[in-house]
């Protein structure tokens, strides 16, 4: 299904009628705006992957830190960070 991508532009000049233009205009998205949406999706995917990787790494350090604390073993700096930061 093809999406009907439209832009709504609202004018706040307060004098639209006198200046001879509509207060609200609906138009199709430009090619540039469509490209921007694609860039947004790509940037979001990149950031989400980084967040997921960081969360996974934190969980691993946390688990190993807990195991070492129980066993009375020294922690690495990364393991200590997840406990005190």
């Amino acid at each position, binding site marked *: 299904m093809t999406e009907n991508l*439209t*832009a*709504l*532009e609202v004018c*706040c000049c307060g004098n639209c009628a006198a200046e001879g233009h509509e207060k609200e205009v609906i138009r199709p998205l430009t090619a540039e705006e469509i490209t921007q*949406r694609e860039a947004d999706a790509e940037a979001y995917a990149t950031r989400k992957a980084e967040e997921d990787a960081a969360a996974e790494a934190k969980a691993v350090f946390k688990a190993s830190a807990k195991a070492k604390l129980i066993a009375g073993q020294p922690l690495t700096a990364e393991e200590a960070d997840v406990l005190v930061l």
Partner: protein
Amino acid sequence: MANTYTLISATTLASSASTVTIGSIPSTYTDLHLVCSLRSDYSAAVNNAYAYFNANDNGRAIFVYGDGSSFGNININYNESYIGPINAATSTSNTFTSYSLYIPNYLSSNYKTSSQDSVTENNATNARAVLAARVWEYTAAVTSITFRLQFSTYAVGSTFYLYGIKNS
């Protein structure tokens, strides 16, 4: 207490729109306050929304969020003007995300900082609340604010209220 708090523009979507731009913002106020009720037609529980000024991205932000079961923070350094998730088509019917953006000193010749709070409204689990500090790295006065989405369109009934505050 603000001396003035004036409604500049009130928009309720009568048909879906991929982007909404509030333009020709008058330069007669000190601060701007945008209050929105947002929902998307995207076929998921949430959709990612974006807002930027004067048709230029180049924003950065720090987010703190919580959703009832987890919390965290996000640093936005991608110039993508991300403002967080909003309700989408499979979230509870007739629920909209509450979104508020305050832009002090929008006419200044400095970078424009702003503060945001928003919350997805969902009569189920995993509603997300977001607080954000934003900076838009341009020195021009803010004359327009544009909302866009990662996918699909803003739903009918979404509202955009822009207020001007003078001598705040």
